[in-house]
């Protein structure tokens, strides 16, 4: 483990450290014990900084991961040790229980891990988009709280950019990965925007409920629930903001919805071809999308041939999900390329600050300017003797040293790494040192 330091030549060593565990390293029984609430995350960031373990800190905590990101302070010789110590004491968990469960990364590997998280490569569901929102939220809260600094700001902004690019430039998050979402996305292929369309939920199974949630999220207009048990239908309808309908009026209801989701436990098909044919006629032949989630199937197989009826059963949806999973996996190299590009960017920025003494760069620049100025000004002054020229050169050299003395002391002995880095970055920018190096 390395730490962030400033050496004798003002050469800043920027290091980031990370400890955490996720769904791959820890079971849910353990993960639920080490979760940080929003308040706890900010408290932890504060305490880690006040105890001198970290100078900048961000805590990410979701159902699948708990991670501490930080920039170790000058004196923190073994920051990950200290972070781990803090982590276990915060949650009052014996260290032995986390043995082999926690991962520790530092330097570019920590950056790579964060970027992979942002890209959805480290998620349980490859390419899922939710993590990017969670990451943004955790970072913004830490930023507002004053827990971040130039290093983590740069690193997290890079991560958010990676997440955005991955989702707009690759297919890794494009296709539905659950049976429920696949059903809803297919319905969108028929009707486009689901706003203003209607759905009928037949039965109250768990997957059907997920389908309803996805449809609700897309603003489906009218939602009705039919179940053999009216009470269960009413319960689900109330939960999802729909309307419960009696089982007896099923055939009448079938003529209304654009989307039918069925998951009734029955020994054979309850929706025959003729029933659906009548339903289509009742809706003047307008298209109907039917998702049959039941096993045994609720919809007779020959109904699939009906004009303007699109029928998908659980196996069809399962196959689509499997295809999509393969397609997402095939995108991983493109995602890794985007991550590598952004790691290079971060490392280049870091390298610019680490490359050497900014004051030395500045001194060199000032001396160059001094020589040019003296040459230009004394060009036409033949009356100035060689001795006088030497004195002018000597005085201006002293002036440069005196002007640089104060910023040099500030950078060497200023309070905290964050302040020094901010100063260094500002100097590079103001004096155009990066441009010069190009």
């Amino acid at each position, binding site marked *: 483990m390395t730490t962030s330091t400033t050496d004798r030549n003002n050469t800043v060593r920027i290091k980031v450290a990370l400890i955490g565990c996720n769904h791959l390293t820890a079971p849910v029984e353990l993960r639920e014990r080490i979760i940080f609430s929003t308040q706890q995350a900010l408290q932890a960031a504060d305490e880690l900084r006040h105890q001198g373990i970290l100078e900048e800190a961000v805590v990410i905590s979701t159902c699948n991961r708990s991670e501490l990101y930080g920039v170790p302070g000058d004196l923190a010789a073994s920051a990950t040790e200290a972070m781990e110590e803090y982590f276990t004491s915060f949650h009052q968990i014996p260290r032995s229980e986390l043995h082999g469960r926690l991962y520790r990364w530092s330097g570019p590997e920590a950056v790579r891990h964060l970027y992979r998280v942002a890209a959805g490569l480290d998620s349980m569901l490859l390419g899922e988009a939710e993590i990017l929102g969670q990451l943004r939220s955790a970072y913004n809260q830490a930023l507002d709280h004053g827990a971040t600094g130039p290093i983590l700001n740069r690193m997290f902004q890079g991560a958010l950019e990676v997440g955005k690019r991955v989702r707009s430039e690759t297919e890794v998050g494009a296709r539905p990965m659950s049976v429920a979402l696949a059903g809803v996305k297919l319905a969108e292929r028929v009707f*486009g925007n689901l706003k203003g369309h209607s759905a009928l939920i037949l039965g109250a199974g768990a997957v059907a409920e997920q389908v309803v949630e996805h449809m609700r999220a897309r603003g489906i207009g009218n939602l009705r629930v039919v179940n053999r048990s009216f009470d269960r239908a009413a319960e689900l309808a109330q939960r999802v903001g729909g309307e419960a309908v009696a089982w007896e009026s099923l055939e009448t209801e079938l003529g209304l919805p654009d989307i039918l989701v069925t998951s009734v436990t029955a020994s054979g098909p309850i929706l025959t071809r003729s029933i659906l044919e009548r339903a289509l006629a009742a809706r*003047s*032949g307008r298209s109907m999308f039917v998702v049959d989630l039941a096993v045994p199937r609720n919809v007779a197989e020959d109904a699939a041939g009906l004009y303007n009826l*699109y029928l998908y059963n659980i196996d069809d949806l399962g196959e689509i999900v499997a295809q999509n999973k393969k397609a997402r996996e095939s995108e991983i190299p493109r995602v890794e390329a985007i991550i590598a590009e952004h790691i290079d960017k971060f490392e280049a920025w870091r390298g610019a600050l680490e490359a050497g003494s900014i004051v030395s760069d500045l001194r060199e620049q000032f001396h160059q300017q001094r020589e040019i100025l003296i040459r230009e000004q004394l060009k036409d002054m033949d009356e100035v003797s060689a001795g006088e020229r030497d004195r002018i050169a000597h005085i201006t050299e002293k002036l440069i040293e005196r002007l640089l003395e104060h910023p040099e002391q500030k950078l060497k002995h200023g309070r905290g790494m964050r302040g020094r880095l901010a100063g260094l970055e500002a100097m590079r920018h103001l004096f155009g040192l990066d441009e010069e190096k190009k």
Partner: protein
Amino acid sequence: MHHLGYWSLAVYAASFACYAWNLYVPNPWVGRIATALLAAGIIVHYFYLYQRSLMLHTVPYDDLYGSMSLFAWLLGLTYLGLEFFHRQRSVGAFVTLLLICWIGALRVLTPRALPVPTVPHGALFALHVTLNTWAYAAFALSFVLSLIYLIQDRVLRSRRLGAAFWRFPALDVLDRMARSSVYVGLVALIAGVSMGLVWQHRLSGGYSLGDPKVIITVAILGVYLAYLFLARNAAWRGARAALLCALNFVIVLFSYTFVNLYLTRFHRFL
């Protein structure tokens, strides 16, 4: 082809590349660039047609080359209008590809030399020709949209969804876009035919209603009106209506090529 013609072809090709890229990996900015390039291509193409018109002293319609180029320009313009109206870019790749192929075919299949300037027939006649060509362009667009509808419907029914499937517009959107296009075509055709009749009456005091071009134009009006009626009918709405729309375009194509080249007396290309 004048250098402006090559420029418009190049800009259409760039627009196609952006639309295709946006279809493969959706990116709002690439989509906007594709639309901007199409608009730029249409502007350059307009100036090309304008220069040709100046040399011929009329709207380019007397020769197959000029007429087909005008057709391509109006096709692009109609699509751009539909794209803004329906806020749907995923068809752009197909339309711009059609434009490129069409202009490329012009270069290969039709005589490039300018026809001898004819006696100007006046603004009413120019409008008659332009509106009728616009109608054909709109019908061509509805043909493309209907074809995509039929493919999408077939894929949905087969349940074997390829990578491109998720990028295509929804059936409902394709259906609405095709109908919008047919509406544009019908309005343009009715207005164009009316102007043609007025112009002919002014010229000769009568109407050549027996001309094959007039007969087939009435047939085109009939089949597209039938499509609009059947597209709302229970037994026809959906894939059958899309198939009918696609087949109707065969008659348009027949009218535009065979009738214009061989059958009509006064609608003939030079």
